């Protein structure tokens, strides 16, 4: 796995539901989502988004992550070759298990968002003993 070569992927745009306020494209970030006994963890690639431009919103069991990029070009620059488009990121998820909303933690480093959603006490898994009978 370590020696696998990366292949470029075109960014997928968010299907438009309502008209955006901010002009420009909006993409779906690539995510990893995994679950541990204590928490649900979401890791999203959002290159170009500074830490203070990330919003995480949870309404009941609907999670929205959004990241706004800084201007991709300097003031006097013009593009010569374009291989990827730049734009904001947004993605929505439906959360299955109950989340303890007070303890949600988010960290953004080098364009990667890591969101830890601790499970509420009642949603933690219980091991069920099978009685021999």
């Amino acid at each position, binding site marked *: *796995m*370590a*020696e*696998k*070569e*990366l*292949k*470029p992927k*075109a960014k997928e745009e968010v299907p438009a539901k309502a008209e955006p306020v901010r002009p420009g*494209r909006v993409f779906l970030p*690539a*995510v*990893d*989502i*995994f*679950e*541990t*006994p204590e928490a649900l*963890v979401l*890791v999203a*690639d*959002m*290159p*170009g*988004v*500074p*830490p203070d431009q990330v919003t995480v919103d949870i309404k009941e069991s609907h999670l929205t992550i959004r990241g706004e990029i*800084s201007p*991709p*070009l*300097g003031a*006097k*620059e*013009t*593009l*010569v*070759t*374009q*291989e*990827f*488009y*730049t734009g904001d990121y947004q993605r929505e998820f439906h959360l299955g298990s109950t989340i303890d909303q007070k303890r949600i933690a988010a960290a953004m*480093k*080098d*364009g*990667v968002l890591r969101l830890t959603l601790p499970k509420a006490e009642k949603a933690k898994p219980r091991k069920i003993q099978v009685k021999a009978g």
Partner: protein
Amino acid sequence: MPVIFREPGWGPFREMESLQRQMSRLLAETFGPGLPLWRPGVYPLVNISEDQDRVYVRAELPGIDPKDLEITVHQSNLILRGQRKIPGEAKEANYHRREREAGTFRRVVVLPLAVDPGKVDASFKDGILTVTLTKPAKLKPRQIKIKAG
């Protein structure tokens, strides 16, 4: 034999080129501003821009440790090599989705002009690598004054 009036420079390819131009204009109008994408098929994808004095090459490399990046400039070739590592999570983690990929990459970017290899800067911020190259002095634009007759 009927005489066919030909426009100078006419040819089947010219028709094709004109069609291609119309198609790319249509695409640009449909999908918004920006140049039509150039697809080299090699990671990482780069955008190249310029201003009067410099050329900028940018690549999206989220979560890459700058220590795992190797940047080389040779004449008008810029070589980007590196590795993207995704740290393994705890053993008890079970995945719902796994879209992010780890792996190595090596790419040559042919720059639009020869650059001064002594004046290359690279910075990494919010997952974006920016390589700044300086145009050689002789290629910089010069303003030409018109002499009064």
